[in-house]
């Protein structure tokens, strides 16, 4: 249908792009992860597993990784808790306002990540909006200091930022449920609650899985929210990677951590896709 030249012209540039900006960097990272740094701050092409060994034996790395996963899990949980009811409401009960509400959910995505993170800093800080308010109404005498520079702040901010990402796939899967199935359930005597648990929720599971994966994976790799709002107790694994590639100048170790995270994330995505397939019927 299309000429050979045309097909080459449209397929080669994206392939080159992917190769140069994705495959080559990953390949370099892969190589780096086996190398090491000499005392004179030079990269030694030594090909051994020392970096991976250090990763597993030094508690700071795997503890930070576990904490990052725990933060990501909480972000996933809370953004599901917010995103699902929102998506359900929009899909089934928003009536003619559906499009308007949809736009309202999407608009925050247009606002820069940094702006949103700084906004929380303003809200949660010692002299922030929230503490001032709490003291003004005499709920507390002194500013609460766990609000900012804590895992709490990180979870709150990431939940705020990633809820639209969980909302979107859930909303899409709810929209795909044929409405006559809901009517059939009503018709067969199921109460609205029974219809939800037995028909709507099972059929929206692919969206739930996709949304949960988004929230978890995006939060796990985040380093700006912990940097701006996390404080020492809110450090995440990406912050370590950043410092290893930066100030610490230990690219090989940074590459090893990055590859471990990549493997983890790819495994998660693969697993969630398998589950999604199992739960999709349309």
């Amino acid at each position, binding site marked *: 249908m299309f000429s050979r030249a045309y097909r080459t012209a449209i397929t080669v540039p994206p392939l080159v792009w992917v190769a140069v900006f994705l495959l080559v960097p990953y390949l370099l990272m892969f190589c780096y992860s086996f190398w090491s740094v000499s005392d004179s701050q030079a990269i030694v092409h030594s090909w051994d597993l020392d970096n991976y060994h250090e990763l597993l034996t030094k508690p700071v790395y795997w503890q930070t990784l576990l904490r990052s996963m725990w933060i990501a899990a909480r972000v996933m949980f809370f953004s599901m808790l917010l995103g699902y009811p929102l998506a359900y409401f929009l899909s089934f009960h928003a009536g003619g306002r559906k499009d308007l509400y949809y736009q309202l959910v999407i608009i925050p995505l247009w606002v820069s990540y940094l702006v949103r993170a700084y906004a929380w800093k303003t809200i949660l800080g010692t002299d922030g909006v929230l503490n001032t308010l709490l003291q003004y109404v005499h709920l507390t005498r002194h500013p609460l200091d766990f609000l900012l520079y804590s895992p709490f702040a990180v979870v709150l901010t990431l939940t705020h930022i990633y809820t639209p990402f969980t909302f979107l796939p859930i909303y899409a899967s709810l929209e795909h449920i044929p409405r006559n199935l809901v009517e059939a359930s009503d*018709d*067969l005597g199921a109460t609205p609650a029974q219809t939800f648990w037995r028909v709507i929720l099972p059929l929206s599971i692919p969206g739930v899985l996709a949304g949960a994966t988004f929230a978890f994976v995006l939060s796990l790799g985040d380093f700006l929210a912990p940097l701006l709002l996390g404080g020492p107790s809110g450090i995440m694994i990406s912050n370590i990677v950043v410092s290893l590639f930066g100030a610490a100048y230990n690219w090989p170790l940074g590459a090893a951590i990055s590859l471990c995270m990549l493997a983890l994330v790819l495994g998660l995505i693969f697993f969630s896709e398998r589950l999604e397939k199992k739960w999709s*019927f*349309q």
Partner: protein
Amino acid sequence: MATTSEPAFTSSSKPSSASLLSIRSVAKHFGKNIVLRDISLEIAEGEFLTILGESGSGKTTLLRILAGFEQSTSGEVWMSGERLDTEPPYRRRVNTVFQHYALFPHMTVEQNVGYGLRVAKRPVAEIQSRVTEALAKVKMSAYAKSKPSKISGGQQQRIALARALVNRPRLLLLDEPLSALDANLRRQMQVELKALQREVGITFIFVTHDQDEAMVMSDRIALLRSGELEQVASPREIYSRPATSYTAQFIGHTNLLRADVRQGTANCGALQWPIPLPDGAALFSLRPECIRPASASSSASSASPINAATVRFRAKLRDQAFHGATELLRVESDGGLILSIRTASRDLANSQTPIDDPLEFEFSAADAIPVRETSLTSNSNSGSNNEDGV
């Protein structure tokens, strides 16, 4: 206005005369668009009633009001002396077979059929036995563990039916359930569905746009036109005694004769026949099969009493379409009137008549049924954007 005739039941299982469902002056507006106006209908216990109409006539909307998916704008629906239309769908003892079956894709056939019983929290043993029984009734026991996506359209149809009937509803609503099936399967399902309805004795309200289907299956047909009931009668009566020109044209083919009545005689071009109607313009429906080639013998014995009301006319053959058992002729009478005639194929088999040679035809005056004039196209409902059954 609806012409509600007394139900003339033709099926062997004669429904009891007790009214199960009473639809009283139901109307439905979607904004400015009037989809149903002033529908009143009594449906007897055990009856098979078909709501027949073109797309956009409001038939699906009426069904959805009965199921509880739509609220009527005005009017009431009562079932066995209790108000039905104020109840939510899940509290009505009414079940629906949906047009596209609406089987739950994440459940097996068995789980689909048992759904109504499970949400009603029936004991497990009872659910098991009733599901088994229902699957046996629709001959689908072998597929109990299959997912709906793994079975054919006709089989899904049976499961949808079993899923509804297992709940023993007072009333079963069927929304064009056969429209997605191919012609052969469709005919087979028509017969099976009718037999099943006799067996279970549940009142069926069946929605279709297919007049043949309505004729084959129903005890009574309620014909809808632009949101109004045009006529409610048994298939035999609605066919042989259509009340309006719309009914006559929608159900089967017909010749509409515009005649002038003068002193008990209808005059339509060269045709004349006695009719006990007041003077004035009148419209008649004359079915194509009521006109036959005049036999030589009948013209000889003109004294027979039948001939008094037999109308004879000469006409030229214009067109001839062979339909197997019958043949459809289009003839032009001396007065320039075009008529369709359906005749048994053998009647004309030997006559290779030259087109220009006039033939002689006849019909009984009693077969020309006076009808009220209503338009065939449903354009009285302007801007109807509620597509029925799509």
